[in-house]
């Protein structure tokens, strides 16, 4: 198996968000609430394959961190909104705002450890 290509922190973060969206979709598919509304839910195995493929494209250290956080919290990646981590609702130090906004590095919340993602204020 080839290791993923080195990507920018911005791209790393985008892949993690895609993975988190997909993980939620897989979890909700197993609850089958949508099936009760009349939707066909038949491709869970296809999504699990897509998940494996997506995970392979993520830098292993970051993926490990994401999966560790996922075991602890419902969401490993959370938005920062108006300077607040939407995972633990603690204020993110102003000194970190620019780094989070510019995605120069993948930052974690100093309080809860979740991965931070800036969506705009």
């Amino acid at each position, binding site marked *: 198996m080839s290791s993923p290509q080195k990507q920018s922190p911005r791209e790393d973060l985008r892949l993690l*968000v895609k993975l988190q969206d997909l993980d939620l979709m897989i979890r909700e598919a197993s609850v089958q609430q*949508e099936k009760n*509304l009349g939707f066909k839910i038949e491709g869970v195995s296809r*999504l699990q394959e897509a998940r494996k493929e997506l995970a392979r494209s993520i830098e292993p250290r970051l993926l490990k961190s994401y999966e560790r956080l996922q075991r602890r919290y*419902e969401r490993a990646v959370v938005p920062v909104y108006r300077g607040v981590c939407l995972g633990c609702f603690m204020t993110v130090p102003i000194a970190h705002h620019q780094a989070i906004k510019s995605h120069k590095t993948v930052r974690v919340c100093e309080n809860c450890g979740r991965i931070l993602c800036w969506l*705009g204020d």
Partner: protein
Amino acid sequence: MGRPMTNREFLALFEKELYIPELDAGNKQEVLEEFVELLHREERVFDKDIVLDMLLKRENLGSTALGNGLAIPHGRTLTTRKLVVAFGKCTQGLDFDAPDGKPVHLFFLIIAPYREKQDQYLPTLGKIAEFFRKKRLREKVLQVSNFEEFVDVLSSEAESA
């Protein structure tokens, strides 16, 4: 699943900015792209690629077409802050892998964050599916030519329900 949605709450979900009178798309992927482009332009989602990827994966789980010319592409993503509903019409009809094999004319796109205050994601899905089970309503909506007429048709239906 959140509490059932009132008709007033349901009607309040629709926005003029998220109404597409006639879709330009020629296939399933293009329909999703056209909606995502609009949501991004109107600043309802923050990353087009992530949202499109999520919607395409949701279609891999099973088509979001329900039959009778109706499809409700939907999903949750981190890249939105509040639940949004967009509507688009395709008079000619498009293949969307519907269970009855029929082309889809009416598209409702729903994007929601992981959690919302009112927990209206599944109730919204359910309400649209229930509302548009009525053939008469689907036919009326196919005839509308602007957002105001669209809302009028939905309001009349809600009042008579």
